[in-house]
């Protein structure tokens, strides 16, 4: 008696990887955001750039370097680690806490621009706003991101966007930077759960 054949496991296709931004495009985008910050903040007076680790931190430093190159203004740069403010701490194994560096002069009364690589659910930014609240009282807070991939879960939007990239939830966007990964690139990876 012939049993029905068990379904053969489908071979998992290798995740398709598409380069969305090359190194040169990424550099132009950082230049543009730096110009936009200068324009929107009337010359970046009283402005502090805070990068959200991992890749927001080098991006914030690059933006400050470009602002300095364009207008000779040294905007203070810092790092804001949001680990202890995450809303999913208890859903994962314990996460290592990274450094938070608030520039000398603090953030009280300053315009703080949060810098991150990818804006997705908005939960990281929510955590960053909470963390900021415990550090001091900025006069205003803005958000700069390299890529906005949509799928917001909170009422949050960015003030400066390098590129809007429509994505499916099943895709992931991977930003690599020379400082952290050895090279500058933004890739769209299909068919892999977002980490």
């Amino acid at each position: 008696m012939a049993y029905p054949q068990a379904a053969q496991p489908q071979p998992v296709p290798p995740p398709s990887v598409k380069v969305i931004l090359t190194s040169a495009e990424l550099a132009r985008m950082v230049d543009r955001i730096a110009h936009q910050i200068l324009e929107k903040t009337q010359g970046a007076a009283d402005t502090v750039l805070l990068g959200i680790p991992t890749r927001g931190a080098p991006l914030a430093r690059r933006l400050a370097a470009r602002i300095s190159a364009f207008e000779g203004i040294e905007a203070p740069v810092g790092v804001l680690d949001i680990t202890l403010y995450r809303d999913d701490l208890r859903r994962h194994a314990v996460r290592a806490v990274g450094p938070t560096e608030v520039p000398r002069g603090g953030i009280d009364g300053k315009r703080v621009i949060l810098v991150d690589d990818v804006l997705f659910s908005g939960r990281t930014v929510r955590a960053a706003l909470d963390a900021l609240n415990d550090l001091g009282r900025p006069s205003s807070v803005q958000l700069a991101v390299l890529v906005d991939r949509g799928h917001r879960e909170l009422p949050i939007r960015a003030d400066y966007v390098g590129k809007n990239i429509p994505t499916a939830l099943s895709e992931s966007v991977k930003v690599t930077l020379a400082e952290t990964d050895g090279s500058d690139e933004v890739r769209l990876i299909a068919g892999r759960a977002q980490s």
Partner: protein
Amino acid sequence: MKHLLSGADLDAATATLILDTAAEMANVAGREVKKLPALRGRTVVNLFYEDSTRTRISFEAAAKRLSADVINFSAKGSSVSKGESLKDTALTLQAMGADAVVVRHPASGAPHRLANWVDGSVINAGDGIHEHPTQALLDAYTMRSRLGRIAGLHVAVVGDVLHSRVARSNVLLLATLGAKVTLVGPPTLIPVDIGTALAPGTEVSYDLDAVLPTADVVMMLRVQRERMDDSYFPSAREYARRYGLDGPRMRRLPDHAIVMHPGPMNRGMEIAPEVADSPRSTIVEQVTNGVSVRMAVLYLLLGGLT
């Protein structure tokens, strides 16, 4: 890591992670809002069967800075004085939903027993003459922040090693982190073979003056009179003369060397006031660092999926 019971529970990577996390936690003390939300809704019970000032307050401050709820339990004025056993007390705490129990107990090994009875994490805050791992971590943190490293340091642990849980935990942790430890004290207060039994490479000396010129760190231990039912040395004056750290002895140390003491001090006995108040002394820093280190331990035990 579920519990922190012994200095031997920590490998070099975990110990370094705790020290690095503590360094970030230390920044919170300088902020406008000295609080982090990481342990909101978690309950930490301080279960203290022995008197303590700095350790209990330090754990309480650490838990509160991480937004955990803290319940303080001391054996005095509780059902323990009516004869309740450690196990029944533990089950009561369990029923109240304690996520972590910080326990200090006069019996060596009590935290290990407790760890089998409760679901939550157990942190040893000192058990008898056995161990006190968070003290060893805060000492290591203090050495690292003052001297920039731990590996390769020569640490002299001086005094009542026999009754000292601080010494045992320090020997274990410092060996893991690559420091060389010499235990110094009168032969009556240094168990035979303790060095090799805890960590190979640990040395023993009965002559403080011979050890001082090469020490990077001198850790003075308290003479624990409450644990002494025998006379281990002829008189307090003789002890102070041979093993007390006074001004002239301190000046035999290398210029960069630091003097530590876990507290509470017997001024004039194991440490002279001149030494305790000198710039080499890290005694007050150790208290401050204790809060940061305990925050790190609580976060790493309770902060994630449990």
